[in-house]
């Protein structure tokens, strides 16, 4: 999988490319719109990450050109502009996703993976993490054969963690997916729900599945998989 990053802030592009390389992607970086366009139509990329404010060719123009040349390639906009009008404009011009700076790197990776997979993540009806089992059809959870009864919100939280098992999810990502944007800034709601979830899922068992990464967020994984 080969990814093109068009971003004029060298530190941002370095950080993103390093992180994506760690996820075993091949990454090219262009630091202006013209180079970006030259690379985009010379090589065959699987995904383009595009900044809107670029020297040379504007990001918006580059987005249109790439879209005209290749209708299939996923394009992720990475920008500091977060006005609704700007988002709408980008989606209309053919963007597939839109992340505003500053962002959590974990979120970028989750979105990149989703775009490359081109479909909802891990939609198997049953998910297993260690001895924890989620039955998505019945919305039932059991661990080591014992049924665990969860409230709908607790289930949604566990489901979201399970979908991205092994990956650290930030509180902001969790709030946006499990609640909605109105709860942003209210990240302690995540901590409270995670605590309740732990009480039911982890506390009665010796092996812990829900992990806290300080300053980053939470992840769900079995110790043996880490």
């Amino acid at each position, binding site marked *: 999988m080969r990814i093109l990053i068009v971003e004029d802030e060298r530190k941002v592009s370095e*950080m993103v490319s390093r992180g994506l390389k760690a996820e075993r992607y091949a990454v090219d970086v262009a630091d202006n719109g013209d180079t970006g366009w030259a690379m985009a139509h010379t090589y065959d990329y699987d995904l383009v990450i595009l900044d809107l404010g670029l020297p040379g060719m504007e990001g918006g123009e580059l987005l249109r050109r790439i879209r005209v040349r290749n209708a299939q390639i996923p394009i992720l906009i990475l920008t500091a502009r977060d006005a609704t009008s700007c988002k709408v404009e980008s989606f209309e011009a053919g963007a597939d996703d839109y992340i505003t700076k*500053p962002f*959590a790197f974990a979120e970028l990776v989750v979105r990149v993976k989703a775009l490359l997979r081109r479909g909802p993540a891990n939609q198997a009806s049953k998910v297993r993490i260690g001895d924890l089992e989620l039955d998505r059809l019945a919305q039932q959870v059991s661990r080591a054969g014992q049924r665990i009864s969860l409230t709908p919100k607790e289930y949604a939280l566990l489901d979201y963690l399970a979908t991205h098992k092994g990956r650290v999810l930030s509180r902001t990502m969790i709030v946006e997916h499990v609640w909605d*944007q109105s709860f942003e*800034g209210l990240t302690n709601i995540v901590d409270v729900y995670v605590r309740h979830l732990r009480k039911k899922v982890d506390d009665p068992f010796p092996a812990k599945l829900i992990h806290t990464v300080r300053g980053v967020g939470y992840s769900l994984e079995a110790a043996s998989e880490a």
Partner: protein
Amino acid sequence: MKTRSIRFRLTAWYAGLLTTVVLALAAVLFLHLQSYLEGALAETQTRRAHQIADTLVAKVRAADEANIGGEIASLYAPEKGDRFIRITRPDGGVIYRSGPPNSQAFDPAAVPPAAPEPPWEFSRKQAVAGGAALLISSVRAPSASGGTYLIEVGTSAAPVDAMFRHLLVVLGLGLPLVVALAAAGGYALVRRALRPVDEIAGKAEQITQHNLGDRLPVPGTGDELERLSTALNHMIIRLDDAFQNSKRFVADASHELRTPLTVLSGELESLAQDWELSAETRERLGSLLEEVGRLVKIVERLFALSRLDAGEAQSESVRFDLAELAASTADQMALLAEDRRIVVTCNAATPVAVEGDHARLKQVVVNLLDNAIKYTPEGGAVQIRVKSAGSRAVLEVIDTGIGIAGDQLVHIFDRFYRADKTRSRNPDGAGLGLAIVKSICHAHQGQIEVESAVGKGSCFRVLLPLADEHSLPSATKPDSAS
């Protein structure tokens, strides 16, 4: 009528001044006319008296005294002309006195004698019992017989007095009328001249920080009012510029902070997950990340506020049930309250339709509930109520928390204000939550009010305009999630 208005004061001054001037003019006119008329009359009569003195009295001898009467009667016929003539000897004896006039205006016999030793020539106004006053001119003339005779010629003052009475009546009635007319005209004129002031004041009152682009009406009259409104408009332009600058500054600053924050949080994030580092180092990196997260939150909220300031609040306007929103939000936050053993009750049974940005208004409910829960001690209670009152939807969030002191109440909606510096070590709080709530309420033509008693609790009340009709398009039932 407002007695302190410029209109009233100008008119009053104007009417008062006019009255004084007209009164003075009338008095001068009246007195001058009176002295002129009486003077002219006296002069005529004096001339006549001299005539009598020259033609008759100068030649008189004691024996002729009786003839004088006949001569005067034939020459002057005083009775016909309503005149009075009297000739008195030096010893006081009357040698001639005209008879009662035809008009019977006065009784010649009742005219009192002149004062003793009068000057050689003088005039007087003599009141006469039982009739009109007389204007009498007297002349002393030496006679052929040696004595000095007093010749008095008079006429009734009644016609002159009647004329002055008439003049007084005309002035007495006319003057107030003239002043009243002039005052009314002046009032109308002043009002017309000041109407642009009303328009300017009315418009100026409507201008707030949200419509600084509006301008005051400029009356194209070239006068002081045009200058005033132009000057005020220039002031509004400068205010607008200053306001735009400060908004742009906040927007630019938060925009510029985004890229460095991205690099900071991204690099720290990857370091914090680098398992080769010691646990202690990762812990410290996590602590750094938390602070970066706070910075990010502040920048985002500032940016959100600057967008609200720019009037981007109602990017969508849909009709929805505020009661349902309150109930479902309270439900979603129930665990947060439960965690601190706080009971949240929701009192929002009847649908209350409002129109606006659903997500932003939800943020209002979330922020208010979060505050209420945060500042209520364990075991307390939080109540959320939605009802309609008049043309407005009312949402109240009432807690039994620590309350806010009166002097701080006015500031709690200010940006970055923290009521109590010591209790606010909450990593989420940046002192912007309530400022955002206020901005969203205002963007929806609503208001937010707060009542609070220290130690007892607070009540935040949001007032929003109701949507046009009372009924909702479809029945909605509270979300029973979580």
